[in-house]
């Protein structure tokens, strides 16, 4: 029986993970290399084993085994194959298995690297990875089992159980409930895997950090070894966030892209600490500072990943107060408390050998600006964390449930994001170690003046207030970044006589992290333009109009042409309106806002008609209509200026991350070469 098989494999993997963690720890403590070797094999095996189990679930999903509760809940006969496969992460139990699957893939991949020079890290990396894996497997096996089935007892009762109760017969409903229609969107199909990939790959740098603490080899070797893992984790997490926000824009029908919902914040928090970490490790590599702080950041990131997995799985969409409703809540909090406590204990134990190797001299030096960057990221994290836990805290102390909404986050993070943008402009031009207002001023005056000129131009065009500040910051970062690129290219061009395009290519190729990082900064700036556009300049209108009548919004007019209602073979009733969009009386095109009604789940879904240009989106929602379509229909129209810069910026952002994370020709050799001057005897 497939369900029994899949479940048994999970149990075996769970036992194996616990064995592996134990054997690795024992092998390291008793200096018994054979045990470590055995633990390594155990970790390698977790991936093929969990694959078997995950494939079992996929098989059950694709073959419509509705006697399995999970399959019943997330699929139905009318769903296409690709949706049945991806329904694996359409519900809590399946997505936890999926999490384990990805985790085991990364864990197995880590065992395959060359360990010769870092063999003392190996056992502790295994311990951390396998303990994490065992925790999630334990959740699947004991609490959220995707293999439980429906049974009918001899007494006629319907029950849910893993194994056949005495005398009971299995029940197989003819059709399942189907995946939530809101989740049947390409963005939502790849959004969870991206987010999860980001989550699980952060476990690897964390496990190296713990290994460094346990073994006392606390130079920056662990950071160099995990640099690429961290970038890959960050890449996937960023991609997950961007896809999620695109999904919200396309599907949720409120013309927005980010709602400060606890689920969004849960995925955003590890991104914040991860970003701070990516910045501050550079200071440790360059200057030997921030060693303790980097350990704190990676510990925070790991526990926020666990917290995020919990939050994103505790309620499908409406996450308002979904905290305590899941049985796995206390287990998650227990695990977070345990790992956080043990990690901090280890950090304190190694506190003295993690002393900084130098000191900071000047408030305006590069390292000092990185410190302020970290403080701002921590500030945004504090805002997010406070917002999420505030209802719980206020209830505890005042007995009164008090919540904070999006205005709270917008008001308190706005200045912090602005501060980060400002630093993004200053820091690339600040010198290391000694930097004074005079030297810094000399470095930045050209791009600074250029950005001021742009501000004057925008002011004349009538832009004021926060928008003007935002545009100035965007211009400022853009000019600084381009200036940096220009300086580098010109220097190469003069020195080696390379042509400018070649010089640009070689510049980026030789120092991928730096110049990839600058591309990421440009991506952020483009995204900021989109955010400014939609947050400050969005306008909307709504109304009911008859055929031939128009709604006007600024320069635009939306004219209602016709409406058709029909049933589709996949169980939807579709009401599709045809509207014309024109600008200043000039016809631009036709849009088809529609409403799909899913019979199975009795849920309507609003799909906007969008006319997209780099300048703006005209986003039309069909709100309501009379059964006889000549009577009229109600539309809501949004004008979202600059919104596509947000998506373009996301694309540039991901591109920059790829540049920064792209493997070097010979990574091992590269690492050896760069790490030589760092591992100076007697320093640790």
């Amino acid at each position, binding site marked *: 029986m497939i369900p029994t098989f899949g479940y048994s494999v999970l149990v075996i993997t769970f036992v194996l993970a616990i064995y592996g963690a134990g054997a690795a720890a024992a092998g390291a403590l008793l200096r018994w290399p054979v045990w470590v070797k055995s633990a390594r094999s155990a970790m390698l095996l977790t991936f093929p084993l969990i694959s078997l189990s995950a494939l079992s679930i996929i098989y059950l999903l694709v073959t419509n085994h509705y006697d399995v*509760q999970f399959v*019943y809940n997330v699929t139905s006969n009318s769903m296409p194959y690709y949706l049945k496969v991806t329904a694996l992460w359409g*519900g*809590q139990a399946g997505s936890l298995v999926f999490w384990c699957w990805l985790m085991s893939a990364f864990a197995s991949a880590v065992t395959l690297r060359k360990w010769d020079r870092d063999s003392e890290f190996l056992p502790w990396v295994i311990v951390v990875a396998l303990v994490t894996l065992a925790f999630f497997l334990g959740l699947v096996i004991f609490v959220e089992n995707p293999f439980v089935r*429906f049974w*009918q007892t001899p007494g006629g009762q*319907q*029950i*849910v159980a893993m194994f056949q109760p005495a005398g009971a*017969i299995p029940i*197989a*409903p003819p059709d399942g*409930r189907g995946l*939530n229609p809101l989740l049947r969107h390409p963005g939502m199909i790849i959004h969870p895997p991206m987010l999860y990939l980001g989550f699980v790959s952060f476990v690897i740098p964390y496990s190296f950090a713990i290994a460094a603490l346990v073994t006392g080899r606390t130079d920056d070797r662990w950071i160099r070894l995990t640099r690429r893992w961290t970038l890959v984790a960050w890449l996937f997490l960023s991609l997950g966030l961007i896809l999620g926000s695109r999904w919200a824009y396309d599907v949720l029908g409120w013309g927005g892209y980010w709602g400060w919902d606890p689920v969004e914040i849960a995925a955003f928090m590890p991104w914040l600490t991860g970003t701070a970490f990516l910045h501050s490790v550079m200071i440790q590599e360059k200057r030997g500072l*921030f*060693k*303790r*702080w980097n350990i704190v950041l990676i510990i925070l990131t790991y526990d926020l990943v666990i917290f995020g997995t919990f939050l994103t799985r505790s309620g499908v969409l*409406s996450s*308002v*107060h979904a905290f*305590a*409703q899941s049985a796995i809540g206390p287990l998650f909090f227990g695990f977070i408390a345990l790992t956080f406590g043990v990690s901090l204990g280890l950090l304190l134990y190694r506190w003295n050998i993690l002393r*900084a190797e*130098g*000191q*900071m001299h000047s*408030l305006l030096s590069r390292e*000092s600006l990185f*410190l*302020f960057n970290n*403080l*701002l990221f*921590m*500030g945004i994290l504090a*805002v997010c964390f*406070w917002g999420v836990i*505030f209802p719980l805290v206020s209830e505890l102390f005042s007995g*009164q*449930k*008090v*919540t*904070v*909404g999006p*205005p*709270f986050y917008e*008001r*308190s993070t706005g*200045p*912090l994001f602005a501060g980060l943008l400002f630093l993004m402009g200053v820091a690339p031009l600040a010198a290391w170690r000694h930097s004074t207002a005079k030297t810094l001023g000399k470095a930045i005056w050209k791009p600074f003046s250029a950005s001021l000129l742009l501000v004057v131009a925008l002011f004349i065009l009538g832009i004021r207030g926060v928008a003007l500040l935002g545009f100035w910051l965007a211009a400022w970062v853009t000019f600084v970044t381009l200036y940096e690129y220009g300086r580098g290219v010109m220097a190469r061009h003069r020195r080696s006589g390379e042509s400018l395009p070649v010089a640009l290519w070689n510049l980026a190729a030789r120092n991928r992290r730096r110049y990839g990082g600058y591309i990421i900064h440009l991506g952020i700036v483009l995204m900021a333009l989109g955010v400014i556009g939609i947050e400050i300049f969005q306008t909307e209108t*709504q109304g*009911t109009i008859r055929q031939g009548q128009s709604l006007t919004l600024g320069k635009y007019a939306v004219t209602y042409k016709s409406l058709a209602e029909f049933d589709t073979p996949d169980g939807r009733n579709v009401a599709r309106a045809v509207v014309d969009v024109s600008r200043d009386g000039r016809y631009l095109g036709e849009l088809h806002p529609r409403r799909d009604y899913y019979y199975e*789940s009795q*849920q309507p*879904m609003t799909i906007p008609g969008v006319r997209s240009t780099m300048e703006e989106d005209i986003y039309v*929602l069909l*709100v*309501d209509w009379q059964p006889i379509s000549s009577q009229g229909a*109600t539309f*809501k129209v949004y004008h979202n200026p600059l919104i596509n810069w947000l998506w373009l910026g996301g694309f540039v952002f991901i591109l920059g991350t790829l540049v920064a994370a792209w493997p070097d020709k010979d990574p091992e050799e590269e690492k050896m070469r760069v790490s030589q001057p760092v591992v100076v005897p007697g320093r640790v």
Partner: protein
Amino acid sequence: MEQSISTPQIKPANRLKFIIGGLMIIAAIAYLIISSTQANAQYFLTIDELNSRAASIAGREIRVSGAVLGDSIQYDSQNLVLKFRVAHVPGDNKDIEAQGGLAAVLHAAVTDTNRSHMDVVYTGVKPDLLRHEAQAIMTGHMGEDGIFYANELLLKCPTKYEESVPQQSGN
């Protein structure tokens, strides 16, 4: 955080500079969080709580949750005015769990005629999830006419996706 960058060798004056700079940023962040919390805190009340202290919360922005009575939903699609009635549900998750989960609580709320009810007016697009036995979470203020004027409406339908046993089974 200051500790992580400070080392014994650092000159006191130098160190002070960073401590002051760091503290200023931390103070600014703390100010932002505290003032934004004060400006934007919304009390989360049940309908019973709302009725028992109508005076003290007049004009304040609050959040209320209730079970939607399907028969009461009226939607004027011309003017986008949505009117409906909600029944009291307990606010505490422990109470909800004790009474058999959100689905059972919502069902009990709409069938029990002795519950306190509240009329809601919301201007805007009728949400897709608004229907009988859904949980509505409304943000807005209580009018002097005893009607709740919501400017934000969130809906939750717990019964829909994950369910323990299918309602009708075919063998």
